[in-house]
């Protein structure tokens, strides 16, 4: 008995699938070539908070010398800096004015500021974020920095009682920004030391038991021992 095979015939007649498959191959090839070019000529920058990555951008307003002014992290980065050359390092400290540990860290910061910050070797920047509670304000940020008579720091304490001295460096208002997400804050206070070219050299969360778990030890290690 003679049987008809329809499968082969259907493949010849139904060319719709072929056209779409052909288009898929062409577009896939174009995308592959494009991605190869990008990765060879200008690969995406490794941006993040792990050591060796470029610190994410921070844009906002910072309080310094009695007034608020624009702040942009990249304005302070020297992308052409090379290891061993002169340059200003950057210490980023993330705090919440209501957090008890941030309250305590005020004294630690005051201790190493005269050695590294006052001399200009390190640019100190404190970034105020909202992690604990939700009743933060710019007034509270200023009061925390300047140790002013203002009840609200550490939730119910008077800011003038904060440990440490008045902080003479910039405090950036990041209460309503994406900085917390961009920096994937593991908690507060959280500190990062950046080399002058914006690369994270020290991440406090990555050093728990190697003797480099404090800002002071990290600053001494990278700026004094390396020099």
């Amino acid at each position, binding site marked *: 008995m003679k049987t008809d095979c329809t499968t082969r015939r259907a493949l010849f007649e139904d060319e719709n699938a072929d056209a779409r498959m*052909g288009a*898929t191959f*062409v577009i896939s090839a174009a995308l592959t070539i494009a991605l190869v070019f990008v990765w060879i000529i*200008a690969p995406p920058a490794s941006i993040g908070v792990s050591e060796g990555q470029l610190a994410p951008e921070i*844009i906002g307003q910072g309080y310094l010398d009695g007034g608020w002014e624009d702040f942009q992290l990249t304005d302070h980065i020297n992308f052409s800096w090379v290891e061993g050359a002169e340059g200003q390092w950057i210490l980023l400290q993330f705090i919440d004015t209501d957090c008890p540990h941030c309250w305590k860290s005020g004294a630690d910061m005051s201790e190493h500021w005269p050695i590294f910050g006052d001399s200009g070797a390190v640019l100190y920047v404190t970034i105020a974020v909202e992690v604990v509670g939700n009743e933060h304000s710019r007034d509270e940020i200023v009061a925390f920095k300047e140790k002013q008579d203002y009840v609200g720091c550490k939730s119910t304490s008077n800011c003038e009682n904060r440990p440490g001295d008045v902080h003479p460096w910039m405090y950036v208002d990041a209460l309503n920004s994406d900085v917390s997400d961009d920096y994937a804050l593991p908690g507060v206070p959280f500190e990062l030391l950046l080399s002058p070219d914006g690369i994270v050299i020290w991440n406090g969360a990555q050093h728990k038991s190697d003797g480099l778990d404090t800002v002071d030890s990290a600053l001494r290690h990278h700026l004094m021992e390396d020099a």
Partner: protein
Amino acid sequence: MVAFAADWPLMLFLAPVVIGIFIASPMGAPRLPEMGEARRRLLGLLFIEAGGFTASVYTWMIHNQMAATGTSELCAVKGLVQCGSVIGDPTYSTFLGLPWGIVGMGAFAVIGWLTLAMFMEMKADWAEKYLDYAWYLSLPGIAGIVWLIIVEMFLVDGAPHICPYCTCVHIALGATIFLLYSLRKNRDAGHWEITRQKSKEELLALARKGRK
């Protein structure tokens, strides 16, 4: 003008766009006498999309260099016509966290796939539907173009600045949207030809030739 002409990457991306516009326009008809109007416009569209795709990839590369080093060797970073202040802007150079270059590359790849599939099989039952899909996918591009021109003119640091590669992408997208619109209009009027419809004289000539 000399500097503009010396900008060979820009010329490289603009060339397919210009060729595509030429092919799709009535001026392209005498050059491709056997092609139907719809097919010729689809071919022109493919050229334009190729130009938009490659220019988008280039802007993504500039973005990557700007993010990593604060400058780019692929485009000027100072002056009125430059990319640095536009593609390197930390606030306006991304859309939902993605560089605009990736957005453009993805958009042109998807619309390009639809266009290529249509071009390869115009008589397929899905081909005319794909034209609608391409059209609807291209429409958000209008808002994108308007927004990015506002960004260039008023919002970036030191505005106004004109980013030539971004402008190339805008031109490609604008031409794509216009061509998709005209293709849909023609299709709705019953014009969806693969080959050019021959005139009576041409048909008669062919018939006489066949008799001989």
